[in-house]
């Protein structure tokens, strides 16, 4: 299969495209049926998704929970906004780490491409103001521990 292409669109969006060797209907199902999602949406090796709620309808809820063997875990929540079966999904999601990250608005398109599918996912990056705020709050909460560890090493 063709490799993933990831580009930014201005300051605000990230666009990911990828071709798959199955028709849009199948790829769409793999994005909306919990039993299928649990098999692939796992990020780096070593993680599983013990909880997967995906109500594929407008205002339907999304909840994915990930866990690894070391006992670490986190989850994502979201809501569907618009679904055009086998063609397009619009939803918002946020990670809980445990504090919620800003809402990420995502549009996923499934276009026929020969016998396969061209998938295009367009997601929003946090805006500059949010990034700055995240930076400063990250500094307050996370930096002290890092500095202490770093001082021990230098």
């Amino acid at each position, binding site marked *: 299969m063709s490799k993933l292409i990831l580009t930014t669109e201005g300051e605000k969006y990230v666009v990911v495209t990828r071709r798959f060797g199955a028709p849009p209907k199948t790829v769409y199902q793999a994005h909306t049926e919990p039993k299928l999602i649990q098999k692939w949406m796992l990020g780096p090796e070593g993680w599983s998704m013990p909880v997967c709620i995906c109500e594929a309808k407008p205002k339907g809820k999304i909840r994915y929970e990930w866990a690894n063997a070391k006992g670490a875990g986190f989850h994502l929540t979201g809501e569907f906004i618009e679904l055009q079966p086998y063609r397009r999904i619009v939803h918002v999601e946020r990670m809980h780490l445990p504090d919620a990250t800003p809402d990420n608005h995502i549009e996923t398109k499934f276009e026929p491409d020969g016998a396969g599918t061209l998938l295009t996912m367009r997601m929003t990056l946090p805006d500059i103001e949010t990034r700055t705020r995240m930076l400063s709050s*990250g500094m307050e909460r996370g930096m002290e521990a890092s500095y202490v560890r770093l001082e021990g090493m230098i």
Partner: protein
Amino acid sequence: MIPRVFADAVFCLTITNRLYNVLAMLDLDTAFAALSDPTRRAILGRLALGEQTVMELAQPFDMSQPAISKHLRVLESAGLIARRIEGAKRPCRLAKGGVEAIDQWLAMLRKALASNYDRLDALLADMKPPKRRRGR
């Protein structure tokens, strides 16, 4: 007192690790492991003076270029340094600042998505209804 440049590098790394989704899956320890080696800390110190090539970096150390390259790969995968391509050279610089934090985030997002989609390829192959072969 921590040199400002180290603070920046670690700061940048910390925010990316803490605050962006994909990074929740990655080990923060990778970064600290990268900083635990004296040669790698010295490399960071030299890069604080500005961008340098592998050859320039190898000079003051009693080490071969491949050995230095290996350290650079560790630093790079920990998100502490960034490299660009300039002809046959790949000059290194310290990774710091918001723009580079975003670049790192994108690189890790790409990595996580790539593993997801590779798994999806396999799943889609399984989902295909078995094709009936017509007798020849």
